[in-house]
């Protein structure tokens, strides 16, 4: 029987009276990209540690590729995992290439992979420089290269774009896309939600140790019934008539600022608003419909 890449059933992790992870169920299929989001302290990193078998669960069953993460057989699965912990500080006294070679040998990966990997993450020029002299972004790139050693089947990336400049972020997502195309299962946490919303298959929103919502960005938006924003550029002399026309629909907020008009509209009444606006089409210079962002969805669930 084919296993899911990750199966978490009823996972609980208590530290004294604190429930860091509380009855979490999660199934991630092979090749899927899951975004795990939540406030600081929501339990994301603890869930990562549970899934990697780094800490024992107080209760529940956690399996990767069908293998229990705390069992002796999990050692073999670890060779196919890549992990980038949050804010990792690698060894200052080693250079970039030596750092990768050290982790490669622990993972049983050929050292010949190291130099091409450094090049892939944009550190080819700094391979012989001590990590001590690396910037935060360079350390993050090195950490990511380490996670990619051995072309892992599963990637666990905890805040991977922390400290990266815009070019670094773009490069990171390009590599992630390449991994995804190869069928790598990826779990990623990020605080920059706009970054990941286009790049994941599903999102899990965590709050106080629980998964509050799980689904595609579109389905979560749908579920939340979050309103749309119509953003218009309208000549000021038409504002009054426009306001009256929209007021008849009684659809909520209308904000006017100079030439700009913003209309807050429930998703299921989008067409009514559009119909009302067509009557003003010659006085509307521009029209833009803004979908609720992942931030809006996130705040709706985790707020």
């Amino acid at each position, binding site marked *: 029987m084919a296993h899911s890449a990750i199966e978490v059933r009823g996972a609980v992790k208590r530290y004294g009276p604190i429930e860091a992870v509380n009855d979490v169920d999660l199934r991630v299929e092979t090749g899927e990209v899951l975004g795990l989001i939540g406030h600081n302290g929501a339990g994301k990193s603890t869930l990562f540690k549970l899934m*990697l078998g780094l800490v024992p669960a107080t209760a529940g069953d956690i399996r990767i590729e069908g293998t229990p993460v705390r069992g002796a057989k999990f050692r073999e699965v670890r060779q196919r995992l890549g992990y980038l912990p949050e804010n990792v500080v690698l060894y200052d006294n080693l250079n970039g290439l030596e750092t990768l070679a050290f982790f490669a*040998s622990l993972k049983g990966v050929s050292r010949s992979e190291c130099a091409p990997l450094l090049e892939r993450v944009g550190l080819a020029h700094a391979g012989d420089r001590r990590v001590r002299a690396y910037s935060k972004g360079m350390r993050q790139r090195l950490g990511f290269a380490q996670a990619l050693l051995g072309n892992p089947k599963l990637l666990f990336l905890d805040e991977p774009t922390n400290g990266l400049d815009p070019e670094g972020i773009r490069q990171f997502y390009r590599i992630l896309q390449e991994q995804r195309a190869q069928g790598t299962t990826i779990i990623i946490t990020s605080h920059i939600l706009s970054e990941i919303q286009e790049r994941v298959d599903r999102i899990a929103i965590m709050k106080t140790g629980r998964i509050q919502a799980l689904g595609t960005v579109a389905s979560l938006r749908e579920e939340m019934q979050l309103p749309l924003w119509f953003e218009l550029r309208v000549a000021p002399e038409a504002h009054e008539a426009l306001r009256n026309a929209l007021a008849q629909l009684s659809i909520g907020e209308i904000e006017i600022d100079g030439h700009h008009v913003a209309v807050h509209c429930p998703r299921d009444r989008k067409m009514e608003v559009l119909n009302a606006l067509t009557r003003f089409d010659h006085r509307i210079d521009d029209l833009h419909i803004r979908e609720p962002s992942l931030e809006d969805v996130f705040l709706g669930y985790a707020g």
Partner: protein
Amino acid sequence: MHFKPIAILARKEFHDRIRNRWVLAVTLIFAVFALVIAYFGAAQQGAVGFRGIDVTIASLVSLVIYLVPLIALILGFDAVVGERERGSLDLLLSMPLTRLELLLGKFIGLSAALACSTVIGFGVAGAMLIQSEPAAALFHYGGFMLSSVLLGMAFLSLAVMVSVFAPDRGRASGMAIALWFFFVLVYDLLLLGGLVVTGGQVGAQAFPYLLLLNPTDVYRILNIFSLEDVRTLYGLTTVFPSHLAHPAVLGAVMIAWIVAPLALATWRFRK
């Protein structure tokens, strides 16, 4: 248990200590101290210069008891807690290796660095001291170096245990210093104090066994007992039964001092 990850971790720890010149610095400290002690050790008696090997070893034993535990504790106190604070411990543990393998790798690598310094440092000093001594002197000096390495490993094992139990580096260093004070300075005083206060009535029977509960005492007895010239000087034969003083027994006790803290550390680390 797999030996490859142990070897990889041990090699890294050892290379780190070679690269940051730790091994070189400690080797020089051992060599210089050993020569100075050997040369000036009898200054109190109004003479300087190299004396017989037995007397020299007796002086060096006192030096080693202060110096080696301190250096071993400094070397190992952040082995695990340092990785934890750096955030690299989780990364290491996500690799295909067990916690026991991680501890053993670190312990063996650090032990190799300490053993290297001890053997070269005291070896260089010894080579200068015992050029004209008979083979028996060489044997005694070899035993002294070997037991010094074992003493270092016992304290390194305690240091690794501290580094597993301590929640942060600051507290780990405090615990390491407290262990040094306890075993090197306080323990014997307490033991003697107890004997004196009770007039030797309480604990006299247990006294030799209580000495075995301190690795520095085991080390002292191991070395002093094998030196004919100084054995009576220390009065050890009067309090320490000879069946306990056999090098094999004392060696086994020393090995127990290496294994027990590591075992405790592994138990805690697994939790």
